[in-house]
């Protein structure tokens, strides 16, 4: 049977077919749906959300060492977080097969950088596969499991946004029950004290040699002969683009196994074509290795390394073709940046934050990143998950040492706090910086599409579980000044900020209100009730001062000609933030 699947769905199906028993991840676009889909196979696979990627990889490593096939998935920056266990697990090797899926995001569709994680395979000296469509993504999970067990290596499966989120036809198969391998204590392999590490270092080099031989013969690296004037070496979705653009006017060496590269096979292919192109997204990962091996090729001299590739970019770069375009009229387009949703609980608090002077706001990653956009403009920095609290500490320490008036407020989401904000806050409490850290607890992992987290009361596979108590954690870390507020209540938010900023010690404000798009659990319904009614503006009373517009709610609009604000009732959920800022009480709630 054939199904139309995204690459992420196909990897989930592949994991099930390959007999995976344990899978773990921390969400992150474009990887999130891999675990969400694996979670559906409740009877056969234990699937879990971890608080962060390091934990996800370590749990999968544990399952593997004990003898089960396991998988961890993450977005590319997640691999940075998981890099520590990755490099040493690469030394100890596996028992049951283990695959790490890294979802890269060329073009930064939803990421803070554009790193090329193929270098991780070379750096950690582990095998790597790169599918170019959904069928391959599914099939390669099984092949990668076999490679992992045969060569005693974790395998990196490197995919990109277009592989993750494009659908193509996939042949569905049955599950292969591989069972669990026996576990036998082997300290010379799994206990990486220096003496073991030195021995494993040698084993790793031998493994790379054996994998290089495998790379020369595996069908994952295949040649498609057509016209020999041009030869193209390509991997991942880059192959599909090149194949589209050149058709049968070129021959292809399609690489599905990309660490180690099949250098001899490539050299042989190169010797039979007149010109050799390398088509790869982002960095010259393949090209550099060909250059080092003395194989002449053209890659990044023509194909851009910045941004995502598309067929037209390749046609232009390698064929010099300029594709005729219908020109757009820029005067008839206005930008459409993402906005905090109508009723988003982050809005009210950011509105109050944006009014405070002499403040540096260290931000973090999540929906609340949008608090930095117009018209709220309440953010100075954002580099990576968890950094808000620790960067804020660095700023405040220097500011205080120099007697500068700058005060810091760090803002971080609930999921991000669990991910890596807790260690940052421990640093703040331990080293006593006079910062205000705000944990914006919207009771869910919002930005990536509503995943459960340790604070929500449910696991990935829907089991009710213990709820991590944020105020208790904060207190245990060593913070005494803690306030929990309703962020939709502007007065309460304002007062909490004023209180925290007046203190001579580190403080934490927890804003507690669920994401407006969250499906409320029974506990949510009890604590927060339901949204009923909408807000309405009495246009006779409206003086056109735009105070409500400054909250940046997409349900509010301003009619320039009439100089009046109005509310789109289909979007409004009645959160009443705008109502609280109106100086003439023109806004009221109806239908409550």
């Amino acid at each position: 049977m054939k199904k139309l699947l995204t690459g992420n769905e196909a990897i989930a199906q592949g994991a099930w077919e390959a007999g995976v028993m344990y899978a773990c991840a921390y969400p992150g676009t474009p990887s999130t749906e891999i675990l969400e889909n694996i979670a559906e196979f409740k009877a056969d696979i234990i699937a879990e959300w971890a608080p962060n990627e390091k934990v996800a990889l370590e749990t999968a490593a544990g399952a593997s060492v004990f003898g089960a096939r396991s998988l961890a998935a993450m977005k590319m920056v997640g691999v940075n977080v998981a890099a520590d266990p990755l490099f040493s697990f690469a030394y100890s090797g596996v028992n049951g097969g283990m695959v790490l899926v890294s979802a890269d995001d060329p073009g930064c569709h939803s990421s803070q950088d554009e790193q090329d994680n193929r270098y991780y395979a070379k750096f950690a000296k582990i095998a790597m596969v790169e599918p170019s469509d959904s069928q391959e993504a599914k099939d390669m999970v099984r092949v990668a499991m076999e490679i992992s067990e045969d060569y005693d290596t974790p395998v990196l499966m490197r995919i990109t946004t277009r592989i993750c989120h494009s659908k193509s036809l996939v042949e569905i198969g049955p599950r292969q029950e591989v069972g669990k391998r026996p576990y036998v204590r082997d300290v010379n392999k799994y206990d990486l004290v220096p003496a073991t590490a030195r021995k494993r270092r040698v084993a790793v080099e031998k493994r790379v040699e054996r994998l290089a031989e495998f790379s020369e013969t595996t069908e994952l690296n295949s040649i498609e002969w057509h016209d020999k004037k041009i030869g193209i070496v390509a991997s991942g979705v880059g192959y599909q683009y090149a194949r589209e653009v050149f058709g049968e006017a070129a021959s292809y060496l399609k690489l599905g196994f990309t660490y180690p590269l099949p250098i001899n096979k490539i050299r042989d292919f190169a010797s039979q074509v007149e010109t050799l192109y390398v088509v790869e997204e982002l960095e010259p990962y393949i090209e550099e290795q060909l250059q080092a091996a003395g194989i002449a090729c053209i890659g990044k001299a023509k194909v851009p390394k910045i941004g995502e590739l598309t067929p037209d970019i390749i046609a232009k770069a390698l064929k010099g073709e300029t594709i005729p375009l219908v020109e757009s009229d820029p005067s008839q387009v206005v930008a459409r940046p993402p906005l905090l949703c109508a009723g988003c609980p982050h809005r009210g608090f950011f509105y109050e934050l944006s009014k405070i002077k002499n403040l540096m706001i260290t931000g973090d990653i999540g929906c609340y990143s949008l608090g930095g956009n117009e018209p709220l403009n309440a953010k100075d920095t954002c580099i990576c998950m968890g950094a808000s609290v620790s960067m804020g500490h660095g700023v405040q320490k220097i500011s205080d040492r120099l007697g500068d008036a700058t005060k810091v407020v760090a803002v971080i989401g609930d999921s991000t706090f669990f991910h890596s904000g807790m260690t940052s806050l421990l640093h703040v409490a331990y080293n006593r910086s006079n910062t205000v850290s705000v944990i914006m607890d919207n009771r869910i992992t919002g930005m990536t599409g509503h995943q459960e987290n340790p604070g929500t009361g449910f696991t990935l596979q829907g089991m009710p579980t213990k709820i991590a108590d944020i105020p208790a954690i904060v207190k245990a870390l060593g913070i005494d000044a803690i306030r929990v507020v309703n962020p939709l209540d502007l007065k309460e938010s304002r007062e909490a900020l004023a209180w925290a900023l007046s203190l001579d010690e580190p403080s934490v404000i927890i804003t507690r209100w669920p994401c407006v798009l969250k499906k409320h659990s029974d506990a949510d319904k009890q604590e927060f009730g339901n949204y009923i009614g909408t807000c309405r503006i009495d246009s006779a009373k409206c003086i056109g001062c735009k105070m409500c517009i400054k909250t940046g709610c997409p349900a509010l609009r301003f009619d320039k000609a009439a100089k009046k604000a109005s509310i789109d009732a289909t979007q409004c959920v009645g959160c009443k933030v705008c109502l609280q800022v109106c100086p003439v009480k023109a806004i009221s709630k109806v239908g409550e």
Partner: protein
Amino acid sequence: MSDVKSILMVGVGGQGTILAGKILSMGLMAAGYDVKMSEVHGMAQRGGSVSNQVRFGKKVYSPIIGKGQADILVAFEMMEAMRWLEYLKPGGKIVVNDFRIPSGPILIGACDYPEQVLESLKTKADTTVIQAGEIAKQIGNPRTMNLVLFGALVKGMNLTDIDFETEIAANVKPETLKLNLEAFRAGIAALEK
């Protein structure tokens, strides 16, 4: 590849482009075509610009449509048609919904919604304007607007021989099926004129 056709649907997060893309792909697949469909998730839920790309033919390689490659551009929101115009193949068709969703800068009064979108599109390509919002309202549920546009797309690409109604039935809630089918047929009819 000359036999491969490329369909680009654009709109604003929440307008239902993804469902339309899904029904389209399933129908094409059932009709025996190789199909690839692509969409970018991410910030879409937060009211950003979204695209859904479907390519079909005997054998499809690229899952995405390059600039200047779409046979048809179906815009669920009119300003989005202009934003994505460069992806249209010269000589390709535009089906545009006469429907405005103001973006952030417009909401806060920093810019105005552009006034000449439809006129300008008409000077650039074979453009059909449809009142999908109005049609959906008349049918009885404004949310069926995406099926109206989908119907127009099917007619615009001459795909009416394919049984999309079965796919619609498989992808919408049973209680909304009747209205959705009506919307789909109204969309086809809107382009027949």
